[in-house]
């Protein structure tokens, strides 16, 4: 009877797999055998029979997945504490593949049931992915959906220690969870390390390991994060501190009266005056002290050669920058910056983005009605100085009406796009504006002529972000078409196309030495690309939702990235590892900016606040310290709440005055 059973199984198997020839041969042979002696065949090992049976059972469908997974899960949860976290990590890929297997086998009902019964385990860590997976409802979707496709064709990397690995294999073999074993063999790539299991705190960086290329392998490439040779900062230092000190003393003497007049003049935002104000540095002693190590670090930073041909800077511009650098306020954790806030009012929820020029005198806003509007704050300050007086008594009415009271518009209207404008950026000198739009074009505008100069077509889908390089001339853009592109102002075709992200590229940022760009994407990774070769040189994995903002520190060593959930991560570019997550914001981090000497990081968020973070302490802390949660509180220096105004953009001027902009949103 047993024999017959096996025969039947074999037949079934062959039929199912479509081995027609083999099936026929088998049948023939069977008939031949059945006639002479059936005893010789009964030698079959009962073990084999069992195995074959179990194999057949496991093939038999959904229950095996459900059962197998729930067994594995309960085993993992009841395993030894020391190895538990490593074993638990295996569950998610197994879960995802179980679900997709069920779908691809056509057991849709069962797949959904399976998904719903176990989804709660993973919601916290992989909420976004689950949403995507949940929408897979037929085998064809598996092929169509990028995420599922990607999961199917790549292996998850899981690091675990030798012992956990052995435990897992033993368990799977002993309990004959062949389905699970199959999935684990097929889709998980174990990196077995000898010795003790890794500590939980390491999980942060190695959380989601579905990467196409091996992130570590990529990170092994050398990256030259140093500043450019012969930069202005260098020249300033060479010119000697002798120049610096008298300048500074002068500034100190001048500032009190400037200060007084400043306060009276309705906070008009003329850059010169406001910078002088911000220069008011009460703690002269501490400022001087703080400067010394700062100078050292700058010297320590290696110098690299530019890989792009850089535009030549005119002598006047150079002079003015040098002047700014001399007058820069030293910011430390105790000397916080002054923040000048530009509030957009009456935007009717149409403001999509804003940007502020390097010196803070120009403010641009991109609107969903396809227009770009540019305000000259230096001029506006003069106008309001006269008309603002009566507005002061009756703040809300007076100020809101001000825009309309002037017969002329207070801004320059730039029209040309045919879709919502998603990003604007000023050239370093403030003479050009670039805007990117949902109409898949990027337009270059002149602030002098107030007209459109060039329209760059190349992207196929909405362009989410565009950024001028720190030296001007070049710019980078990122788009829904999953590419980032590097352009130069004089060509209408892109110079480089960076492809590799698995979803929209949401933001882009230049490295200060212009040799690299960083891109943040909806696939929750940040990548760094070499501009000259177009290669991906770093992948930063760790965020749990779409990345919205990026900033690279001025000395080129660190990068900060902010995501949808309000988490900010600080990365070391050289090693590609996360130094520390900065928790504090409760909503989208729209913008990040490093202060000019890199000691502070400012972040602006949809939770209506600007936060200042101490970078030096965040980076210096040894990793072992980070486990105690209290330290992350210390890194946040200050929270500056705004009056129901989400902060869209932040910009440190060369003199370390922080400019912020946001659109006043009505409450309720």
């Amino acid at each position, binding site marked *: 009877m047993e024999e017959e059973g096996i025969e039947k199984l074999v037949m079934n198997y062959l039929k199912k797999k479509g081995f027609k020839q083999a099936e026929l041969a088998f049948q023939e042979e069977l008939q031949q055998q059945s006639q002479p002696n059936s005893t010789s065949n009964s030698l079959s090992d009962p073990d084999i029979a069992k195995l074959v049976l179990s194999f057949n059972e496991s093939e038999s469908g959904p229950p095996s997945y459900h059962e197998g997974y729930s067994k594995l899960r309960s085993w993992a949860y009841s395993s030894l504490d020391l190895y538990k976290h490593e074993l638990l990590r295996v569950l998610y890929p197994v879960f995802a593949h179980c679900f997709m297997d069920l779908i691809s086998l056509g057991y*849709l009902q069962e797949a959904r049931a399976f998904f719903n019964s176990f989804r709660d385990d993973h919601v916290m860590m992989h909420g976004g992915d689950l*949403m*995507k997976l*949940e*929408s897979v*409802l*037929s085998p064809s979707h598996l092929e169509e959906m990028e995420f599922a496709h990607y999961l199917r064709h790549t292996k998850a990397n899981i690091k675990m220690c030798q012992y956990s690995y052995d435990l897992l294999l033993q368990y799977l073999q002993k309990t004959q969870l062949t389905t699970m074993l199959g999935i684990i063999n097929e889709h998980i790539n174990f990196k077995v390390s000898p010795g003790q299991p890794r500590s939980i705190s390491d999980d942060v960086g190695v959380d989601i390991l579905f990467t196409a290329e091996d992130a570590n392998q990529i990170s092994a490439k050398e990256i030259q994060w140093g500043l450019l040779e012969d930069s202005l900062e260098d020249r300033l230092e060479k010119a000697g501190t002798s120049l610096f000190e008298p300048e500074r003393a002068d500034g100190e003497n001048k500032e009190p009266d400037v200060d007084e007049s400043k306060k009276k003049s309705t*906070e*008009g935002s003329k850059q010169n005056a406001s910078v002088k*104000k911000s220069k008011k540095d009460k703690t002269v002693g501490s400022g001087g002290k703080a400067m010394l190590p700062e100078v050292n670090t700058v010297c320590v930073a290696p110098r690299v050669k530019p890989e792009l041909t850089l535009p030549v800077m005119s002598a006047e511009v150079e002079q003015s920058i040098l002047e700014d650098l001399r007058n820069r306020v030293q910011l430390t954790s105790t000397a*916080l*910056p*002054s923040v000048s*806030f*530009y*509030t*957009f*009012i*009456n*935007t*009717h*929820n149409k*403001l*999509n*983005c804003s940007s502020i020029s390097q010196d803070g005198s120009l*403010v641009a806003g991109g*609107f969903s009605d396809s227009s770009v509007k540019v305000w000259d*704050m230096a001029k*506006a300050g003069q106008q309001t100085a006269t008309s603002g007086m009566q507005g002061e008594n009756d703040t809300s009415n007076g100020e*809101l009406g*001000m825009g*309309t009271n002037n017969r002329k518009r*207070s*801004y320059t209207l730039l029209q040309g796009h045919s*879709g*919502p404008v*998603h990003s604007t950026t000023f050239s370093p000198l403030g003479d050009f504006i670039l805007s990117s739009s*949902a109409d898949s074009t990027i337009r270059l505008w002149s602030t002098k002529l107030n007209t459109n100069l060039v329209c760059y077509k190349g992207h196929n889908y*909405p362009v*989410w972000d565009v950024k001028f390089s720190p030296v001007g001339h070049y710019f980078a853009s990122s788009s*829904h078409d999953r590419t980032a592109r590097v352009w130069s102002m004089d060509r209408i075709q892109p110079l480089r196309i960076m492809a590799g992200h698995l979803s929209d590229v*949401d933001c882009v940022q230049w490295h200060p030495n212009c040799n690299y760009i960083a891109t943040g994407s909806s696939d929750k990774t940040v990548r760094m690309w070499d501009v000259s070769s177009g290669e991906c040189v770093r992948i930063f994995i760790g965020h749990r939702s779409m990345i919205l903002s990026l900033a690279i520190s001025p000395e080129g060593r660190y990068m900060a990235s902010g995501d*949808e959930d309000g988490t900010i991560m600080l990365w070391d570019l050289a090693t590609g590892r996360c130094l520390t997550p900065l928790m504090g914001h409760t909503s*989208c981090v729209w913008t990040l900016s490093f202060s000019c000497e890199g000691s502070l990081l400012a972040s602006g968020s949809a939770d*209506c606040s*600007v936060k*200042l973070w101490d970078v030096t*302490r965040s980076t210096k802390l040894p990793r072992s310290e980070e486990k105690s949660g209290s*330290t992350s509180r*210390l890194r946040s*220096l*200050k929270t*500056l*709440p*705004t*009056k*129901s105004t989400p902060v*869209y953009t932040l910009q440190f001027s060369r003199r370390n005055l922080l400019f*912020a902009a946001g*659109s006043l949103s009505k409450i309720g």
Partner: protein
Amino acid sequence: MSIVPKETIEVIAQSIGISNLSADAALALAPDVEYRMREIMQEAVKCMRHSRRTVLTADDVDSALKLKNVEPIYGFASGGPLRFRKAIGHKDLFYLEDKDIDIKDVIDAPLPKAPLDTAVLCHWLAIEGVQPAIPENAPVQVISAPSDGKIQQQKDDKLPVDIKLPVRHVLSRELQLYFEKITELAVRNSESILFKEALVSLATDSGLHPLVPYFTCFIADEVSRGLNDLPLLLALMRVVRSLLLNAHINIEPYLHQLMPAVVTCIVAKRLGKRLSDNHWELREFAANLVASICRRFGQVYTTLQTRLTKQLVNAFLNPSHSLPTHYGAIQGLSALGSNLVRLLILPNLEQYVRLLEPEMLLEQQKNKMKRYEAWHVYGALLRACGQFVHNRFKILPPLHSSGRTLMRTGARVITSGANKRKMTSENSDHLRSSKRTAIDGPITAVAPSSLQEVTTNSTLRVDSSAVPSPSSGPTPSNNGAVVGVESEAEDRDGGASTTASNSSRLNPRLSTTIEHIWKDDFDSGNLLVTLSELFGSHWKKRIMKSVLETHDECISYSMNLMISRRASLRSWASHGWTPQLAH
């Protein structure tokens, strides 16, 4: 399996003209529809993020559809959020409310105003890390330890050590000056116009938050120090009120410091130096203040009201406390709402009045001052109960949905009541002034005239509104609710018949409706009768004596107070004492 049921697919198919869609096709389509919908929503969320928003709008969905090369859905682009209604009988079914609009209305409507143009304003969010207190900035939160108060020292082994320094709170010079000026005014010159200006400034200025702890501290100190300086206390309470009025100040964290001071001003044993000081007014002011605090912070600070009530009830029920304390407690409780009156005063009323009675009578309490105080307490009690009854009546008419006529008459009654109250308030003002003279000056000379005035006043009122019908005569022994109902109804009848000529037709209905209401609220009927009994019996005695008493104006004050309540109150007042007056 899919969240889109196959019936939905069938309905959609029919709506686009496919009538013979097979069930299998619908089943196969449903999951795909769900997948596409999720895909579109995912793109829409991306569009939302790139528009720097946190709320998904119809525009985002439209642009997501455009991304997928699908025709966007028209007709939802209006700015406002969409209002979804729940379909009755279905748990998870929502629909958009689509009101019919008359084209005429649209045409006739004036042209909408042009929207204001976008503008950019500039202000300092922070100056060297410190937020200036200007209207453009969010109100400063509770003053916490500034971050520079915590200095981290980097030791040689690079271990950060937290050293918590005492919190140093930086106040600008201007604020310091402002504080000094205001406090000086409050202490020295609280009658001046300047102080009134100062109060306005306290109630409106936005940058005062840093000063709040100093003000609360100052108030608490001054109250405990200056209990016998009445003008000072009044000035301080005014400062408290202004601070409470200021919308830019978050005073909640400092309430624990403020409350004792204010409560002291309600229930203190003695306030003011001289006996003639009008501390009653202060107590009333403070009681209203406390009530407003409770109303505003009751939700946030849940124990506030219970603690306060406990304190007041203790003051009220402890016979060893002085009468002014009792007065304050009663005022405080009645200011906190009629519910408290019902729960805390009414059950103890009978006992209390029994205790109070001997104090009020000439033969038993020889001390004129004590008697005077007792009458004040009595007045406060009357007022509390009256207010309670009044509130009861105020909520009754709307209960009745069918009686439109009743509503109309009710409205009339109320308006007349309002007029009356105005009259009485004038009257009582007059009385109060006369009272002052009565106490200070020669009593006999003033008393008769004022009394006369009062009696004429009250009789006038009685004539105009509450003509006592024979059945509502002096029958205090009846203590069923029905009596209350009858007397009430008849009283209204009487009022109605004298004022409205055609009201006779309405009367039966009116009385039945009122009866109905009374049945609804049996308690009130009982209560009214007990009240009328309680006060009425005393009133009789009092009336007899008070004519001869020197404190007559006090009673008439209370009387007026009673009269001034609405028709309801008048009814029970008349029930008790009007007949006597007519004698």
